[in-house]
């Protein structure tokens, strides 16, 4: 079951869901709109290596915005810290953003129960596109879970700002 907007608001008030900062104006009938934070990371090596910590470069967005190039992957982040110890969060782009040809996440909309922090956005644009800090870029929905809950204790807990992939920490080294 997916939570309704009024239930999301209620859940924030009794701490079943944490959204900080929270604004009632960003509540949809079944989701919450999240905004684009002001830092973007890009990988600087020509080839990204899944088994290495890849060097990145940070760009700060100002009010003039920044043009995202189609051949580049940008790691952004939500302004809001969002999480729940009870519901499963799913992050998607907003339709207004999709219609600009901007993909906000790649292949992984499903979050973990117990993760709290700013969500990293995986931004890839079909066309050159100018984006602005603070624009409502994505939406998070919450689903009721079934079964006993183990809270997230993973490597991105309490994330602040965009997080580069840490796949390298999970590398299985064969003997």
């Amino acid at each position, binding site marked *: *079951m*997916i*939570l*309704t*907007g*009024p*239930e*999301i608001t*209620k859940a924030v008030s009794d701490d079943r869901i944490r959204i900080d900062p929270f604004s009632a104006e960003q*509540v*949809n*009938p*079944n*989701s919450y709109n999240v905004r684009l934070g002001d830092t973007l990371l890009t990988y600087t090596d020509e080839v990204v290596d899944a088994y290495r910590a890849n060097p990145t470069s940070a760009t700060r967005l100002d009010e003039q*915005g920044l*043009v995202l190039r*189609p051949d580049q992957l940008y790691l952004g982040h939500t302004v809001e810290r969002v999480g729940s110890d009870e519901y499963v969060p799913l992050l*998607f*782009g*907003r*339709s*207004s*953003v*999709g*219609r*600009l*040809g*901007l*993909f*906000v*996440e790649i292949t992984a909309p499903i979050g973990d129960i117990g993760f709290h922090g700013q969500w990293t956005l995986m931004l890839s*644009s*079909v*066309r*050159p*596109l*100018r*984006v*602005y800090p603070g*624009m*409502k870029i994505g*939406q998070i*929905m919450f689903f*009721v879970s079934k079964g006993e809950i183990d809270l997230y204790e993973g490597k991105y807990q309490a994330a602040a700002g965009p997080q580069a992939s840490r796949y390298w920490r999970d590398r299985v080294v064969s003997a």
Partner: protein
Amino acid sequence: MILTRRAVTEAISRGEIVIEPYDPARLSPNAYDWSLGDRIRICDGDLDAALPTPYQEVTIPPDGMVLRPGILYLGVTHERTSSERYAQLLNGDRTVGGLGIWVHVSAPLGHVGHAIHWTLEIRVARPVRVYPRMTFGKIIFLETFGDPASYQSLGRKYRRTGGIDISRLHEELT
């Protein structure tokens, strides 16, 4: 919880889900298989979230149209769907994905109260020919938890659409 074929059928007969045009043969075990409308918009310029998107709108001819990588296409579902009770999730299907076509990947949620032809955000991995009214994806219906809110009562943009919508994000940025 996702509605099964039988639950969708019953919800349609009670008027809790509306699909127009509706063809029972398009129901699959837990989804409705919708089709591609015959109008499509081509966006091949530089875009700005603070400005309306320039585009060219064409009719997909009966013998098809080749979609090309690097271009954003805005299509539309042939069907209009609505429900005041269930949330809706719309995606492409695995057959279309297997052709290298992304359909509406970034915003699959239809909020309770949406009554729309869905605007489709389409990009392709390789040149691929598509045809009007071809089966293009699935829509599923979800039960909700909590007091309901409806798009119809919130005055949101896109709440009733009959065709393809370009992004109206610029309205929020002025």
